[in-house]
């Protein structure tokens, strides 16, 4: 296969050993691999720090050459397609010709579990491994379907072990937490981070100073993928990466669209601002609440007086609050923009 032109894919770790830092967790996982047995696992840690990569590579090493047949990764936050939904509907009835107490009755399994998880966990293990491995990403998105999942963990637990991944443990019901071994995945430590960046710099023949790496570490907040992205974009301006190029390119990653949206409404260009807001919402598939939180982030970064800032935050909060009740998000977003331009005129 050709080498990926996208660094974050190119430098994706290919084994547990290649993962930077987190020595503790890696040792625990290695132990599990040697014992050939483990309970269900629950990985907790903030966004983008590599929980999924960790879990996937662990599964890969645990299952060895039977990895492809016995592994599945499911995203709990991806809605079902219409075909999948209709399949779930047709699966939900047990035919009258079947024998047993369920004959002719309706199964009440949630559609998501019925379609995405059940077929995998029901099938037998293939090859010489003790069980299959299922990773469920963003597990908290299952919401009320978690109870149905709990049953699945009990019934098919011996056949398939599950690794649940989440950013917030509060979103997961207690019975599931108690059935799992917890792994608190921390951010990568600075030493390993700097090693990785040095490695990439060598490979791509970049020059980068330790001081700059320190800043990069702070900017990326432990997100390795983000750090590598910034590095790649910065590298396009030359092989030496100093503070200036770094800051300049980091700014590109800040959501310019949201920033310009606020600036447009400051200038009183309402129609343009509304077009922009609609574009953002449809491009990023933001709900109104998500757009308001983005706006809040930008407001906090703008050079404003404390009074102005508090006034703006108040407006955003009010709009968000109204959007919960309201029927039309667009009206609430437009209202906020109109109010901001009025306020900017007074300033």
């Amino acid at each position, binding site marked *: 296969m050709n080498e990926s032109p996208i660094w974050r894919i190119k430098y994706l770790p290919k084994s547990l050993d290649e993962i930077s830092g987190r020595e503790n967790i890696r040792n625990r996982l290695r132990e599990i691999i040697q014992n050939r047995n483990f309970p269900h696992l629950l990985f907790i840690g903030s966004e983008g720090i590599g929980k999924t990569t960790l879990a996937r590579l662990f599964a890969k090493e645990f299952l060895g050459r039977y990895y492809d047949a016995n592994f599945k990764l499911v995203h709990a936050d991806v809605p079902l397609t219409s075909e999948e939904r209709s399949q779930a509907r047709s699966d939900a009835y047990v035919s009258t010709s079947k024998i047993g107490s369920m004959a002719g009755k309706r199964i009440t399994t949630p559609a998501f579990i019925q379609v995405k998880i059940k077929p995998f966990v029901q099938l037998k293990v293939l090859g010489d491994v003790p069980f299959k491995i299922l990773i469920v990403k963003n597990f908290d998105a299952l919401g009320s379907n978690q109870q149905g999942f709990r049953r699945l963990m009990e019934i098919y637990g011996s056949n398939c072990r599950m690794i649940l991944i989440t950013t917030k443990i509060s979103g997961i019901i207690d019975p599931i937490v108690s059935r799992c071994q917890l792994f608190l995945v921390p951010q990568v430590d600075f030493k390993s981070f700097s090693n990785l960046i040095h490695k990439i710099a060598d490979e791509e023949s970049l020059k980068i100073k330790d001081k700059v790496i320190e800043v990069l570490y702070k900017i990326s907040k432990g997100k390795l993928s983000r750090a590598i992205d910034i590095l790649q974009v910065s590298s396009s301006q030359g092989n030496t990466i100093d503070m200036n190029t770094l800051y300049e390119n980091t700014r590109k990653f800040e959501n310019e669209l949201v920033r310009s949206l606020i600036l447009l409404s400051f200038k009183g260009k309402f129609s343009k601002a509304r077009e922009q807001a609609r574009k953002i919402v449809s491009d990023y598939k933001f709900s109104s609440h998500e757009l308001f939180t983005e706006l809040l982030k930008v407001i906090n970064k703008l050079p404003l007086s404390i009074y102005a800032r508090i006034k703006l935050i108040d407006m955003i909060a009010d709009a968000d609050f*109204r959007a919960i009740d309201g029927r039309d998000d667009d*009206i609430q977003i437009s209202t906020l923009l109109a109010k901001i331009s009025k306020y900017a005129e007074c300033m």
Partner: protein
Amino acid sequence: MAQKNKMEIPWVEKYRPVSLEEMALPTAKLNRQKVDLADELKNFIKSFFKEIKTINEKNKKIKAYNRTVSEKKQKEEKKLPTEKAAVLLEGQPGIGKTSIVYALANDLNMEVVETNASDTRTRDTLEAKLKETSKSRGIMDFITESKKKLILIDEVDGIYGTKDRGAVPAIMDIIKDTQFPIILCANDYKSNLSSLYNMIKRYEVHPLSNQEVVKITESIIKKEDIKNIKKEDIELIIEKNAGDLRGVINDLQAISHGAKKDDKDTQDLIYSLHRDTTEEIFGLIRDLFQKVGTLNEARSLTNKSDVDYNFLYKWVNENLPTFINQTDERAEAYENLSIADKIFGRIRNNMEWSLLPYFFDLFAGGVAIASKNKSSGFRRVSFPRYSSSASYSLNNAEKALIKKIRKQYSISQMEALRDFLPFLRILTNISRRKLKEVTDFLDLNTKEKNLLK
């Protein structure tokens, strides 16, 4: 006037044709072939009863046989092919779809069982109403030879939303084991009904020609003895209704009551009767923003119109910036609109319909009054083309792009959209070469490539 001492029934009912012979038949097409609708429907009903008879006899034998053997050897009961059990008539409103069904039933001495959009059509109500009719004959049928039934499901395309959930599968089930012929009527092709369309024959019914409409109108004018209407006015009515005969007759009735001697009044009346809602909304929006100065005026404006307020306040939202330019007036107007929206949400969520007057006052009056200096002159009114709920779903190009990304790099749809795609945009904007590398790597076509811009 002639009809004063008579009971006032709508002329549409009064002049509904009682048999196919006296009816002006609309032309119809089946698979783009012109057909004679009356013949087709007659044949459909005749063949239906003939076939259902033979099938019922066969089923009787199968049932008798099934009782004698074990469960495994049982034969399945035969069913009529759905194509022969139901037909769909599709065409614009008021051209005689329902009339033709009633006239046909009258000719063949049948009874029509009708359900239309005014009934809620959940699965349960539909089944309660139709399934018993469609499956069996009543007890009375054994005693007397009762009328055969014809099932009419009108305004099929009006089935949508959560209110009518499960109605389409219910209709399909009913078609599958009906004992009586079914005729469905619809105005438009609806993609969510395609599974239904696949089961049955779909006739496109075309509007009557203008000459035919003129003929019918003249005969009604003669019968009702209307004198105060001119030939130009009749032409105007027909033109405005564009083939909608029901609309023409309704207009005629309204004019026979309301017209005065003055020609201009009659013409105004015709224009005001004109049922084109978009035109009406355009005028309404203009009036609201440019003429209304007090709450009372706004109230009477919204009361007068029969535009659905669900739409109307979205129109207000879309067009507000066009008519109100001043920053503080705009903010004030939007403030009122936003509270109106909040109230509307509470109304819909908690069924608090008593709050509706506040909603009306705020979204119409509150918005109109906010601007002190009315804009004058012509402003373009635009459609509320933006729907905030539709924006959460992915379009096809986005779906394809994310699928290709996920082939190379395992991330979820949301991560791809919010984290990876923005980065790809930054990366590919650096240089043409980078763009080419990335598109080659992910194997993107032009459409997907455009998403990176």
